């Protein structure tokens, strides 16, 4: 028994100071084990087989020859797989993507649909057998043509209403001194996180134990419970280290097929998606076609704002890329109309990908604003400042802190914006044309109900248990700092354990909500524990544990427009001989709430901006009309920004707080990409005098677009 001590008199105040990652040493030495790296005795290996047709029915699965191949243990397919429950609405309010509910019928709704799982003793045997498996199909004509001109597009809500509308759009446009009316497109984009999806499933003492790589163990466990009709207490999902997620790491075909095989074979089964399989099984950002109409008075005040966006989804799952969300937050106008539409095609299901909606939407909106600034003869920052709304343009709600103007002022000062010559196409350095651009960023602030347990151990240390996920965000470290402050002890006395559904329900690492959701729960539990210990007494051998649940506190939160903001700046150089665009420098200044750990936060914001460069210049998945699949669906065919593409990027922030959050956190995971591609595109215009409204800004597009100096 030990006397409990917390330093009630000397607050440590580590939140806001830089700390290297608590698991950093494990990551640089190779000791950190990811999902596919936990050894199990008797492990068998599953290899998925994907459809080679884009639409049709499975006629036969030639299991016979494959089952006689060396080491093959089983072939699962729609003819022998257990039936799953799929008519439920999951934790985040959406039904499961049928792509994850594998082998339920003979339908093939897109190229690369999972049709079988081959299980064998070794990965080499499983792979060869999977490649040898002959599946025959009744092929049907497929339709993958994504176009705004199609008659079968329809408005769809998703997480946000499809349509918002006020005022007389045509009248306000007619009365405007300056009008921008343009179409912008963004291509299909893929998450491409470095660690492929991997899961090992096994039955252990009557419980299903799944070692996985995901963005929320509660989330995945809940889906497995429902899909396999199991008792909630019978499923445990662990996910200690996650090699990136970006929205893709949820319930997918690999966990479900691994559970099926482990159940059938009564031994541990691991299924890892190959890089190529990820391009059809793990979601992606839909291409978008966006139409923007802006009308303004001579002084730049917006009279009319219309933003329409179309995205594609699969025939089996409706996903809305809510690109018009930015317009609902950033700018008001007398006539204001936004609409998200979708079209169902014979393509894989898209999903959330870093700043879903805001990333493509901000490209279109912030590029259009730049065009309007040019027409009005106004500085693009001044145009935005003149259109700062006092309340939510659509909601009418008050803003819970809107420091966008401060971001622009600080960013402009540091970037040297005041010296900018607004004329396009007039700066040349050898074969390079130079230009600078800016754009605004915003991303919603949210939190999901979470529980945490904080234990005072007899040795004077503290253990925090929460089903959080650190997908590279630094959440584990951030929560360590938050807990230390709430307990008022040095961080060396705090141990944070995450990534285990047995720790109790918690929100996901997604929507920039992770650290805010979990820090809230940790603060509540740690604060109560500190009070209990302050009352005196001793810590028994089993420790003293306090649990928290933020459900009620979040439910009582006042409705406000809660967002993180940012101002993005980019300098681009355009090679007049090759059409190559190079970003020379980038600066982002953000108002994103209280920054828990400046070291990891800066890294994450810069990472988002790097995605913006990648989105502006490189990323583009191209579908082949003949096969319905992707050309080059791998990391050679799908280029993400590499070292040589990325210049020195600076990210910083202005003082900002969410007054209603116990720690003051808003969220930083996504706001870094928002507006970043637009800032680059606007810089390319400033360099060349040519507007690029289709991403990515490839060399061939730059050359074909011509322009005065190219």
């Amino acid at each position, binding site marked *: 028994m030990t006397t409990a001590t917390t330093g009630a008199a000397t607050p440590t105040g580590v939140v806001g100071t830089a700390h*290297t*990652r608590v*698991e*950093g*040493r*494990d*990551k*640089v*030495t*190779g*000791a*950190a*084990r*990811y999902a596919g*790296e936990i050894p199990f005795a008797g492990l068998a290996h599953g290899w998925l087989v994907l459809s080679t047709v884009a639409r049709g029915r499975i006629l036969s699965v030639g299991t016979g020859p494959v089952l006689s191949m*060396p080491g093959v243990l089983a072939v699962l397919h729609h003819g022998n797989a257990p039936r799953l429950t799929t008519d439920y609405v999951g934790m985040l309010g959406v039904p499961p993507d049928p792509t994850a509910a594998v082998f339920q019928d003979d339908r093939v709704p897109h190229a690369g649909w999972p049709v079988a799982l081959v299980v064998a003793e*070794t*990965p*080499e*045997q499983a*792979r*060869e057998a999977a490649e040898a498996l002959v599946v025959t199909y009744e092929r049907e004509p497929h339709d993958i043509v994504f176009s705004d001109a199609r008659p079968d597009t329809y408005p769809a809500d998703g997480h946000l209403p499809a349509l918002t509308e006020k005022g007389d759009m045509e009248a306000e446009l007619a009365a405007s001194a300056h009008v921008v009316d343009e179409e912008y497109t963004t291509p299909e984009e893929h*998450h491409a*996180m*470095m*660690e*492929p999806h991997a899961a090992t499933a096994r039955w252990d003492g009557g419980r299903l134990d799944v070692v996985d790589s995901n963005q929320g163990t509660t989330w995945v466990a809940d889906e497995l419970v429902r899909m396999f009709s199991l008792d909630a207490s019978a499923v445990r999902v662990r996910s200690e*280290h*996650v*090699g*990136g997620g*970006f929205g893709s790491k949820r319930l997918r075909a690999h966990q479900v097929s691994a559970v099926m095989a482990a159940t059938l074979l009564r031994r541990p089964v691991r299924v*890892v998606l*190959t*890089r*190529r399989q990820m391009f059809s099984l793990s979601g992606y950002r839909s291409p978008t076609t966006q139409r923007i109409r802006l009308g303004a008075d001579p002084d730049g005040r917006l009279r009319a704002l219309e933003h329409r966006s179309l995205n594609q989804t699969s025939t089996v799952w409706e996903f809305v890329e809510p690109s018009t969300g930015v317009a609902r937050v950033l700018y008001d106008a007398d006539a204001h109309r936004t609409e998200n539409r979708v079209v169902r095609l014979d393509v894989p299901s898209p999903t959330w990908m870093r700043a879903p909606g805001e990333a493509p939407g901000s490209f279109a909106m912030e590029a259009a604003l730049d065009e309007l600034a040019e027409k009005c003869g106004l500085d693009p920052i001044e145009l935005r400042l003149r259109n700062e709304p006092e309340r939510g343009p659509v909601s009418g709600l008050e803003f819970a802190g809107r420091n966008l103007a401060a971001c622009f002022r600080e960013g402009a000062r540091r970037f040297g914006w005041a010296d900018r010559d607004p004329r396009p196409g007039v700066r040349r350095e050898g074969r390079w044309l130079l230009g600078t651009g800016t754009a605004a960023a915003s991303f919603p602030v949210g939190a999901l109900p979470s529980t945490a347990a904080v234990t005072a151990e007899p040795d004077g240390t503290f253990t925090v248990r929460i089903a959080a996920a650190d*997908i*590279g*965000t*630094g959440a584990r470290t951030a929560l360590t700092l938050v807990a230390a402050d709430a307990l008022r002890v040095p961080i060396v006395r705090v141990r944070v354990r995450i990534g285990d559904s047995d720790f109790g329900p918690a929100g996901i690492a997604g929507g920039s909500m992770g650290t805010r959701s979990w820090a809230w729960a940790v603060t509540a539990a740690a604060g109560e524990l500190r009070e209990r210990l302050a009352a005196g007494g001793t810590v028994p051998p089993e420790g003293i544990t306090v649990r928290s649940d933020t459900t009620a506190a979040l439910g009582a939160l006042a409705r406000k427009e809660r967002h993180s903001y940012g101002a993005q700046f980019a300098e681009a150089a355009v090679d007049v001989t090759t059409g190559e665009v190079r970003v020379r420098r980038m600066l982002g200044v953000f108002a994103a709430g209280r920054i828990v750990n400046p*070291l*990891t936060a800066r*890294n*994450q914001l*810069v*990472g*988002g901006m*790097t*995605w913006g460069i990648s989105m502006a210049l490189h990323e583009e998945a191209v579908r082949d009309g003949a096969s319905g699949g992707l050309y080059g669906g*791998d*990391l*050679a065919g799908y280029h*993400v*920004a*590499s*070292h*040589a593409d*990325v210049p*020195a*990027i600076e990210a910083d922030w202005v003082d900002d707080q969410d007054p209603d959050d116990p720690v003051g956190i808003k969220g930083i995971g996504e706001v870094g990409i928002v507006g970043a591609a637009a800032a680059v595109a606007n810089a390319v215009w400033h360099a060349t005098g040519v507007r690029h409204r289709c991403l990515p800004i490839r060399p061939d597009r730059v050359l074909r677009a011509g322009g005065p100096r190219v």
Partner: protein
Amino acid sequence: MAPSTSSTVTLNINGEKHTLSVDHRTTLLDALRERLDLTGTKKGCDQGQCGACTVLVDGRRTVSCLQLAVASQEREITTVEGLAEGERLHPVQRAFLDLDGFQCGYCTPGQICSAVAVIEEHAAGWPSAVTEDVRPEAGPPPLTPEEIRERMSGNLCRCGAYGQIVQAVARAAAAGTPTEGAAA
């Protein structure tokens, strides 16, 4: 008689010899991860496109997913697990940790192995595509951020920690050249 599909090989990894029977199809990467429990080397694409599986073979960078285990005999293989000396991190590891040269950590072992070789390649005078003066007598070019970026471009980091990685490589390179460091 069916042809043999496996062979016994001896792999020299991090100074230790391992003799094992491997399927001829087994890559060096899978031998490390699945057979020897050396999971520090990561599988990001299994196609030689991402660099996550980079190890040092006889001191040179190699993507271990594109090398068969049976072709790796009599080579000195160094993985991320073999860089630190006991508790003392390799200067590159130290710099990655201190400067936060990663986020999710999955590309990190490959980046670190690559960086170790980059520093050696540069010191040995190897030019890169961005080296301006490639004459042998010109000697190693300054290890500028541009040189580091070019030389590290075989290693993708989707989290976008490139800036911090470049700083870490520069710091580790400077730490490894004490005479220059002392003169600076």
